[in-house]
């Protein structure tokens, strides 16, 4: 049973998501709220498997919400819910602690698939985001940072050039599952490194 929480301000979309999850036997909706202020304590209390969070929320936005609860919810996978894949904020959210994103146009059957995928360690990544991740790791080449492996680099490079997971897997002679697992690892490293960065910013200013 996968436990799920939703923070989405648009009632139609929230309602549609609720209905979708409630119809699934293997998914369990713990709560669905329309703002982060209400959602943050609930998240920390419930510690769900998956948290689906919209970026544009009234008050505290989705990115800050993830940043705030990430450490207190070690078992939660955060999933950004967005209209546009190319939104600048998607990368920010991923760097803040999200492991995946879902586009609002995604058909409902695919949505369930994505939730299960994420729970199993799979993560989506567009070419745009792959490019940004590469840049991030290139810029933050510090000994304290956890570097990307050669394979991870290869995958990111292909993704950034517009290759789909399917194509990457084919090119590198691995399965799509492996590709998604790699991407998941890359996200984890991104979070760690991003967090180190934040701590350095605070304690480095002596």
């Amino acid at each position, binding site marked *: 049973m996968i436990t799920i929480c939703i923070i989405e301000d648009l009632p139609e979309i929230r309602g549609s998501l609720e209905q979708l999850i409630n119809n699934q036997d293997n998914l369990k909706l713990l709560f669905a709220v329309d703002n982060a202020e209400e959602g943050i304590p609930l998240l920390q209390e419930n510690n769900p498997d998956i948290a689906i969070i919209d970026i544009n929320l009234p008050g505290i936005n989705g990115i800050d919400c993830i940043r705030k609860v990430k450490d207190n919810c070690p078992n939660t996978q955060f999933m950004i819910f967005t209209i*546009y*894949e*190319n939104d600048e904020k998607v990368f920010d959210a991923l760097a803040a602690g999200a492991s995946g994103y879902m586009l609002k*146009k995604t058909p409902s059957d695919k949505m369930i698939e994505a939730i299960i995928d994420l729970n199993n360690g799979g993560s989506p990544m567009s070419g745009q985001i792959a490019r940004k991740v590469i840049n991030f790791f290139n810029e933050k080449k510090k000994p304290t940072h956890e570097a990307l492996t050669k394979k991870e680099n290869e995958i990111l490079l292909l993704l950034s*050039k517009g290759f789909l997971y399917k194509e990457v897997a084919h090119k590198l002679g691995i399965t799509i599952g492996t590709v998604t697992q790699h991407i998941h690892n890359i996200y984890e490293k991104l979070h760690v490194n991003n967090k180190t960065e934040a701590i350095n910013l605070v304690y480095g200013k002596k």
Partner: protein
Amino acid sequence: MVKNKWFFLLIFGICYAQNNKIINSESSLKNDSLKIKSLLKIGQKFEEKSNDSALYYYLKANNLAKNTRWIEGELSSISNITAIYNIEGQYNKSLQLNLYSVALAKKTNDYLWIGRCLANVGTTYIYLNNYQKAIEYNLKALKLFEKSNNKDFLARMYANLAIIYPRIEQYQKALLYIDKAILLNEKGFATDNYIASLNTKANILCYLKKYNEAMPLYLKGLETAKKQGDKYQLAVFSNNILDTYKLLGKYSKMISVAQNHFNYCKDYGTNEMYSSGYKGLAEAYFYNKKNQEAQVFADKSLHYALKDTILEEMKFIYELKSKISFSLGDLKNGNYFFDKAKSIDSQLVNDDIIKNTQELEAKYETEKKELKIKNLTHESEIQKYKSKQKLWIIFSLIIGIIGITIFTYLQYKNYQNKKKFILQEKQLAIAEERIRIANDMHDDVGAGLSRIRYISTILKNNEGIKNSEIEKIISLSDEAVEKMNEIIWALNQGNQKLDELIYYIRSQCSEMVHNASIEFICEPPTNIPNVIFGWKENRNTYLLAKEAVNNAIKHSKATIISIHFEISNDLKITISDNGIGYNPEKIRKGSNGLKNFNKRIETLEGSLNITNSTDNGVTVSFTIPLHNKFR
């Protein structure tokens, strides 16, 4: 004694000539200058009797000249005043005043005046026994007189130099100058000067012990003086002749000369002259062994010498008397007079030492003052130079500051204008972009949304929901979101590089083709140059590629769709399929798709090429120029 006499004569001569000149040449001047001149004249008259009275009038003249700022008058008076100072032994005062007069004379720019003042400084230096300085000043004066070609003054300078050089034992130089002086004086009208120069030359010859050569000159001088009726000169020459005969050992000639000398001295009439006259007679008789007569004349000479306490004369006479006494066998008186002469000599030496000490002190003081003056002028010059330098620095600083200010202002204005221009350009570009974005939103998203609304209205009015209509709404809204996504992508600043465009085309087309279960072949080029595409180019290029791929997916029935990128001076994108091709007749002319295609190519200033075959499918390739876009 001899020396002193002609020396006095010389100084006197200079003063006299100067005053004459002023009186003659400036007689037309105003009352003040006439007053000054008469004051000087009165002073001159007093000079023979009382130096103090003469000085009083000269100082008065000097004051008046100063007040009326008549430089020539001031110079004349100074010349006379310093002559008095020299006679009175106030050499220090004299030197200061003469040096001042040189500075004053320079204002007149008159060589004669400057020369005269320089000569006066030289004369004072003679009194101070500083012969080197004396020569230096006289030579300076000489140069100026040479320039102005004044023979009178020139002759006087030659004579002066001839007097000074023997003091430092340079007799040959002295002879050289005195010959020049005589040459000029022979032709000139100033007979006193001629006589004086003859005397000088004879004296020099005497220094060289050439008495035989000196004698004719003395005799000639005596003759000339006789013609002139100059009593003083007659006395001097006859005395010198007497001396020379003595030195030549021609004692027999001495008595008649001594007689004449006595007569000339008597004519002049001073105690000193009487003493000199009787002394000459005494000597003449003594050397002719007539001791009795000699003793009488010696006593008479002593009588007059004692009247004015003329020490040198006294000493000489006591010596003579001692010699006469010894000759008469009177040892007692001989020793007595010898001791007397000795005591006077020691007094003289003492006086001399005192005088020398005083002179040395005066000299020291003078030099100190000179040094001070020199330092002062030097300092003032430095100050002047410094202030001049400062002025220049300030001046150039001001110029510099003004220059920088103007330059900065112009630069600033230029910068402002440029900024304004750039801002305007930017605003214009932004306005253009805004219109374009608005158009795109209107055409792409707006059209989709209005279709959704239209379908929804039908659904609302009709009972029983048709699934197909709902499907249409979903696909239309997906399309609208898709188009928004594309617009956002193209608008993103970071997405304006050529590589990003190519990767985006690849990823979007790949998804489309894969979703249609068609094989997709696209290997993006490895080396993509750093080219910046504007959002307009990005969007149009992307849409061209997407449209071509979309057509292939929809109409070609192909199993493989490929995209090939080629970059040189242009970007060439070739989209080919292995489908069935198309029938050109079936495509309506002016269809929206084709219209859009052409419009986009036109905007990109590119070209389009389509090959169509039933066997090899359709190949669409478009070329977009990259020039001016390389970074």
